[in-house]
């Protein structure tokens, strides 16, 4: 393959990588929260994102409002969906062996995807809003990706402030450090689990709204996001919430770099190779172990 790499292309890779990275970081933060607090990997995380994308699509086509304004609605709706999932199903397997929680959320994931197939059909849908891009020097900024970056960065920052300085946020971090000690301190752990799952689902929903303007919407769009979110967590170090930020940026950059030299399909494989290499070389993540 003969690809001449110009400085403009390098700039484009960096810009596109960082734009994608904030989105990855926000969605992965949801998965990381559930894993940190309950030691459960939610396989249905990506399908929850898919639901968010459909919510935005239907609100947009039905009312014609600015699709970015659907953000609070999808986040609120997914918050409720997440709490319902936790309240009805997931709480039963929080203390069970890992096999149970993996299989349970896998079952939920299959059910959600096929409900979407039944309800929305497998037609590709798109929210055509804010298409096109503008140039800064030789580097193109896709408008919808730039807005997605800004919104995702803002939401991620808000989530960190929430975790860092509010009482509930501190309770969430305390529960993730040690459930028993949190209970002794009078924290209602069941309620924290409920809130955490709702919050995580809302972050996935926000991701769905933002990528509804970027990629085609269809029932199977979500599953790859479970995988990528997990990769982001592994890159940043499991249980290390700020690490998700670094992991997201890194994944975005690597994918963009790969797409310079490889076909789109193969650049998906690059993310996979990245996971295997990190697990081999530095399984505790780039920033190292748990520190919340």
């Amino acid at each position: 393959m003969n690809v001449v790499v110009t400085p403009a292309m390098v700039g484009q890779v960096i810009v596109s990588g960082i734009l994608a990275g904030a989105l990855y970081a926000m969605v992965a933060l949801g998965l990381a929260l559930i894993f940190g607090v309950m030691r459960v990997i939610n396989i249905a995380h990506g399908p929850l994102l898919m639901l968010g994308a459909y919510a935005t699509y239907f609100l947009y086509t039905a009312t014609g409002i600015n699709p970015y304004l659907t953000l609070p609605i999808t986040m609120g709706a997914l918050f409720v969906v997440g709490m319902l999932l936790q309240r009805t199903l997931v709480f039963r397997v929080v203390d069970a062996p890992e096999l149970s929680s993996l299989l349970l959320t896998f079952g939920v994931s299959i059910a959600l995807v096929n409900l979407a197939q039944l309800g929305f059909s497998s037609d590709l849908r798109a929210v055509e809003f804010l298409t096109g891009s503008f140039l800064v020097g030789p580097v193109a900024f896709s408008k919808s990706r730039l807005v997605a970056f800004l919104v995702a960065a803002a939401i991620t920052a808000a989530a960190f402030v929430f975790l860092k300085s509010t009482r509930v946020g501190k309770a969430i971090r305390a529960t993730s450090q040690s459930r028993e000690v949190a209970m002794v301190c009078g924290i209602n752990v069941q309620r924290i689990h409920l809130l955490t799952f709702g919050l995580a689902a809302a972050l996935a929903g926000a991701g769905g709204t933002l990528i509804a303007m970027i990629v085609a919407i269809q029932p199977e769009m979500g599953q790859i996001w479970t995988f990528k979110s997990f990769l982001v967590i592994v890159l940043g170090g499991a249980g290390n919430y700020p690490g998700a930020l670094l992991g997201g940026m890194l994944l975005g950059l690597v994918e963009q770099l790969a797409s310079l030299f490889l076909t789109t399909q193969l650049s998906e494989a690059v993310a996979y190779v990245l996971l295997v290499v990190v697990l081999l070389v530095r399984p505790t993540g780039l920033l190292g172990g748990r520190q919340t």
Partner: protein
Amino acid sequence: MSVSRPAFLMLLAVVLAALAVYPFFGTGYGVRSMLQLFMWIALAGSWNLISGLTGYVSFGHVAFFGIGAYTASVLITKAAWAWLPAALAGGVMALVLAVVIGWPCLRLKGPYFAIAMLGLDEVLRALVSYFEGLTGGGFGLSLPTLQATFPIYYVMGATAVAVTLLTYLVITSRFGLRLMTIREDEIAAEVMGIDTFRHKLMALLLSAVGPGIVGGLAARDQGYIEPISVFPLATTITMIVMVLFGGKGTVWGPVLGATVLFFLQEAVWARFIYLHQLLFGAIIIAVVLLMPRGVLGLLQLKYRLPRTI
């Protein structure tokens, strides 16, 4: 009431003998259906070997099936191999893949292996589409026509028997006990001096070879493969549902689950594809929450059968 061992073995011999002579009496459709049932028994039994025994969930077991299918098809079309050695080569390639993926992921405890398997089929699909020269890319590979349903019936049946026998041998051995110790408490297993990484990797190898061979056989039987048809997530889901429904971590659970769900699928559900998948999702949730030992677990309780067989 409990079933005596000689009576059970007698029944088993009768069933096997009936299946052995079935192709001489059955219709073409019937023989083909049984062939597919054998395939599902082998696949479900193989998934059980890693996930049912060690508790490490494989969300991408179809990858071993697919790599077997492609290995066999490429050898048959490009190197003019006979189908039987080609299918066995499919099993060997599945072993290679299992080492590549198991080595980094099984050294770690926790969900790493499960998630790595989740992405594996996607990656293989992309790779297969990319190397068009060898695999025909998205157009797939057409195998030369060959009337071999009968011999494939017997080889597929033998594979299903072999996987079930292997499961019996593993479960009744010290090796199997160690795997189940890992499932129940991995740290305790380590403290007792079990090399957990080596045991988990071994279990993965045993569980990969069957799907590799079966993939090669299925490709020969169908005569045409393409990336979408040999790496569907639905195949993994079906394996998992069959094992969970029948009873994970047992010898006969996968056989029971595969048989019941396969015939239900053929008779009723094949007409409603998404509803059928939705139902599978619901079965997984229900089994995990309500009857973690599957149907066999209920039967074992009721008829006082041995617990792991």
